[in-house]
């Protein structure tokens, strides 16, 4: 087999790999991945965006399979193959997305309509194509330059790191669809660079060719538009005559669409009491990613138009006392700020995450909203809610957490699905610690039937109070509900009888039901919005009583409070309940299904099945060719590369979540951690070259695994106290600290892959593309599996699992 081993060293291969092209391509591929998540979160729903993108990444795995089968043919033609794949990546990045968004996928009928799964499959295939080409190019480079894999892989990782940083910067200055064109251009640029680096063809000629392609791509993206699913609330609202989009801006936090209605007024007042007599004032709507409507109220309407603010369930605190300092978390269009103003609150702190939203309100609708955020006494803070509270020195009479739609935290959409740090036990404890004596925390949620959110929130509040040393949490809680919304009040002190009378009055005047206050009687509950049983009251009593654990166990939805280690408040699914729901599917049972979780499981199953095919397929071909390879070798390759593929992302994802608790802003956290991981891992890979040159592969792998284990275990214990210590530091200092903390860990994590691949290159080069494919498939499975493990066991377990996997990999590393 000597002759074949020498195939890659023919005259057509230049002495050094096209590093810059690899880096650019890698940057483009990662940027494309992040952008796709953004685009699909806009045109579809976030969960399905996650599923589609995750499965499209199997394009990496498929590339490994393809290269295994076709390597004989491609390697002698490396230059052409490399450049062709680069060009195809650039072109398909745009065209495949534009085609995929035309597919009329409707997730809600996926269980009824056989066409929907088919449409999903078409989307996966279309979107996998660009990843396939990108992975082909990079894989080819690895195989052809076996002598310098470490540096090639370093270029790959460094490029990816820069790409993740750049895409976030790009999304801040560009609308999503044009950003796609820019990324495709980046891909084509890498083609140009490759042509120069490989000294292929005539430079001027190829420059012209690439330029033509770039122009083509630019033209296509100029004329393209986002095709948002017809069932999202933005397109639905636009169907009303006279309603149109006035303005759109975009950032990594979301696409904001400002909608005005000239003919028929928008009247958005969810949770409005049935006894309300007046409709809300004129409103302007702002949608985020085609859904999640928030409204800006006209600040100059007659007084009666603002009555509606007092007819919402979260107006309750204003009837219990006269708060002087109010904090509104998640201010949005400012309804709660207006509400506070209407009730005569002199000092209001409003916190909003999205600066573009505030910009729209201040610049465009400043006059319309009567300078809502610039009035005397109103202090606006652009910050993430929990981070603001944690770092605040102030204490408040009232902290309002209004209805916040459960659209996903925007960690650029990447790897984030259901996590929310707003409603964990630790979060509630933090909020409560910022209340003045006898102050209130008011949290409002939508009411889903059978009750879920509200009950889980209640359980979380009880737990938070108990952890703070309160013996009788029930003395500090008030729960009321309308037919749409519920409001839970947690007091920093015991609820007085005066306040209870005020609650009774407030509720009955508005046809709201009381579900809990100290001393409540069952006859008082379930009177206006009748349920078959006083479910909320019964649950509150159970959760406050000695049989809490039993109640939670027996409830058919998951009511276990979320914690920072398992930040999945919106995770209500219990496997046990599934058979019953499926049986009822035609008889109204479908809305009982928890889509978030089921989509995750479906993604995992599909990824595993597809990976099995992709990994096993080349084996049969390879077997017939290379009899001298033992099954032992193939098995150890499989085990090693899948283990490190899984473990790398487990650790990355778990630490992204950890650092979100430190940096708070989901975007900073993801950008910094992701970039940090990739760049330092890249540096680690570059270092690996020294080890490969001195033939210390095995030692290098063991060193890496031990370093990773020790650092991770240390961080498991040390990070939380460290974060607490440094909580008050400014953002830039925290970012630098984060990078310092990531550096040793990521550096070590960059070693295992290139070390083993280099070894493989010497011993069994024909297995290299297969190993590349195994790694690709493992990455896809890893992301989904990490989330599922975190949902059930928490992120600490995810990290421990990763360490076991690394250990396992080191043990299965064998040299032939």
């Amino acid at each position, binding site marked *: 087999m000597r002759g074949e081993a020498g195939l890659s060293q023919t005259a057509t291969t230049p002495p050094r790999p096209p590093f810059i092209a690899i880096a650019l391509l890698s940057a483009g591929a990662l940027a494309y991945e992040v952008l796709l998540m953004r685009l699909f979160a806009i045109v579809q729903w976030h969960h399905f965006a996650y599923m589609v993108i995750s499965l499209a990444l199997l394009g990496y795995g498929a590339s490994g399979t393809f290269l295994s*089968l076709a390597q*004989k043919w491609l390697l002698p033609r490396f230059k052409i193959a490399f450049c062709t794949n680069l060009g195809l990546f650039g072109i398909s990045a745009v065209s495949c997305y534009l085609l995929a968004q035309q597919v009329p996928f*409707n997730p*809600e*009928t996926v269980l*009824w309509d056989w066409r929907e799964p088919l449409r999903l499959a078409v989307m996966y295939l279309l979107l996998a194509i660009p990843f396939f080409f990108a992975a082909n190019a990079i894989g080819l480079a690895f195989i052809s330059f076996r002598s310098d894999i470490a540096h090639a892989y370093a270029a790959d990782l460094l490029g990816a790191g820069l790409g993740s940083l750049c895409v976030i910067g790009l999304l801040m200055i560009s609308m999503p669809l044009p950003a796609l064109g820019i990324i495709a251009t980046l891909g084509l640029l890498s083609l140009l660079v490759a042509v120069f680096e490989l000294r292929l063809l005539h430079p001027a000629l190829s420059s012209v060719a690439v330029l033509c392609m770039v122009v083509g791509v630019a033209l296509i993206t100029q004329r393209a538009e986002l095709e948002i699913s*017809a*069932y999202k609330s933005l*397109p*639905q609202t636009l*169907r*009303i*005559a006279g309603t149109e989009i006035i303005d759109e801006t975009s950032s990594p936090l979301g696409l904001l669409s400002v909608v005005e209605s000239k003919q*028929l007024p928008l*009247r*958005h*007042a*969810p*949770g*409005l009491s*049935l*006894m*309300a*007599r*007046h*409709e809300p004032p004129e409103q302007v709507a702002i949608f985020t990613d085609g859904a999640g409507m928030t409204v800006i109220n006209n600040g100059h309407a007659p007084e009666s138009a603002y009555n509606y603010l007092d007819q919402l369930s979260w107006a309750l605190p204003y009837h219990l006392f006269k708060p002087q300092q109010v904090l509104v978390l998640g201010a949005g269009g400012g309804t709660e700020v207006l509400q506070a103003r209407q009730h005569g609150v002199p000092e209001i702190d409003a916190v909003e995450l999205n600066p573009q939203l505030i910009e729209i309100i201040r610049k465009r609708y400043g006059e319309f909203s009567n300078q809502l955020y610039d009035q005397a006494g109103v202090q606006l803070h652009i910050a993430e809610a929990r981070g603001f509270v944690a770092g605040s020195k102030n204490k408040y009479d009232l902290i309002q957490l209004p209805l916040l739609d459960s659209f996903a935290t925007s960690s650029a959409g990447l790897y984030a699905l259901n996590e929310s740090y707003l409603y964990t036990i630790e979060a509630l404890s933090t909020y409560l610690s910022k209340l003045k004596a006898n102050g209130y925390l008011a949290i409002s949620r939508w009411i*889903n*039937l*059978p*009750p879920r959110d509200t009950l889980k929130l209640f359980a979380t509040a009880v737990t938070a109070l108990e952890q703070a040393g309160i013996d009788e949490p029930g003395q500090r809680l008030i729960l009321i509900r309308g*037919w*749409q919304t519920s409001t839970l009040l947690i007091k920093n002190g015991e609820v007085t009888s005066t306040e209870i009378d005020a609650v009774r009055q407030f509720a009955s005047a508005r*046809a709201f039901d009381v579900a809990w206050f100290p001393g409540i009687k069952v006859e008082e509950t379930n009177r*206006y*919005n*009748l*349920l*078959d049983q006083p*479910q909320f009251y019964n649950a509150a009593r159970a959760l406050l009583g000695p049989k809490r654990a039993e*109640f939670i166990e*027996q*409830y*058919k*939805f998951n009511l276990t409070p979320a914690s920072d280690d398992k930040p999945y408040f919106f995770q209500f699914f219990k496997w046990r309940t599934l058979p*019953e*729901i499926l049986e*009822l599917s*035609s*008889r*109204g*049972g*479908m*809305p*009982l299904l928890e889509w978030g979780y089921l989509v995750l499981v479906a993604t995992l199953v599909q990824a595993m099945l597809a990976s099995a095919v992709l990994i096993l397929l080349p084996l049969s*071909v390879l077997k*017939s*060719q290379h009899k001298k390879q033992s099954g032992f070798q193939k098995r150890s390759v499989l085990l090693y590369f899948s283990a490190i593929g899984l473990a790398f992302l487990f650790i990355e994802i778990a630490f992204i979540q950890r650092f979100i608790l430190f940096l708070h802003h989901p975007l900073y956290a993801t950008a910094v951690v992701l970039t940090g991981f990739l760049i330092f891992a890249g540096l680690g890979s570059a270092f690996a070259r020294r080890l490969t040159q001195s033939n210390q592969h095995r030692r290098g792998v063991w060193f890496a695994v031990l370093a990773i284990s020790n650092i991770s275990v240390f961080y498991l214990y040390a990070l939380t106290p460290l974060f607490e210590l440094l909580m008050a530091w400014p953002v830039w200092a925290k970012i630098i600290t984060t990078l310092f903390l990531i550096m040793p860990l990521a550096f070590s994590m960059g070693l295992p892959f290139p070390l083993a691949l280099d070894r493989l290159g010497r011993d069994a080069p024909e297995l290299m593309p297969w190993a590349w494919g195994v790694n690709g498939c493992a990455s896809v499975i890893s992301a989904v599996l990490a989330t599922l493990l975190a949902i059930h066991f928490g992120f600490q377990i995810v990290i421990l699992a990763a360490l076991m996997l690394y250990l396992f990999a080191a043990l299965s590393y064998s040299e032939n």
Partner: protein
Amino acid sequence: MSHNHYVDTLNFKLLRVLRNGLLLILMCLCNLVFATDVDDYAEQRAALIEEITDDVRATARYLGRRELNPSVLTALGQVERHKFVPWIDRYRAYRNQPLPIGHGQTISQPYIVAIMTDLINPSAEHRVLEVGTGSGYQAAVLAELVGQVYSIEIIEPLGRAAGKRLQALGYDNVTTRIGDGYYGWPEQAPFDAIVVTAAASHVPPPLIEQLKPGGHMIIPVGSRFLTQQLVLITKNEDGTLQTRQLLPVRFVPLTGKHD
């Protein structure tokens, strides 16, 4: 070289399988779309009604009814649902599921329509308001049971098509109009029952005013395709309101509890 031959054979077989598969799918589709006729529809309708009857009977106790009004199911058996859906979906018009009708709207699941219609206690002398005509299916079902139906639709093309359809099918006790349903239909108020299928963030106060004492308003809550709960608002004789929140599914959230 054996490797190439192997791959070639694989490719060839694969192509054949793909081609046959595509032909099969094409044939099935043609069959589905073109093969149904009037008698088939009647049969399908009857089968649907039977399915719903059983399902609804099981849920009736959960909805707090002694039993379900048979006239409602008769009405559903009369209305030709296939004439309210796009022609390409006719083959599945009698499945117990909602269907898209264009403009981002849907025609409701027959099972839900049955429950909703029953909950408002329709009777022959009633005057009913519907906000959100959609395809006109719910209006047609109501028309079979009550004296007069007034239906408003905010999306013009949808409203016009539904109006024409209802006329063509002979439902002359239905009056449709294009407009904003928030303010109801003041000229024809008060109403014995109001059905609100148009999505709104809250219950419009004008609609509550236009409800007669003793009358019922029914609002399905959830997404276009999945109804999570039914809100039944009853106006008492003295003008006060009573609201019931009903799960249209036989489901108890606690294990170990008996009906």
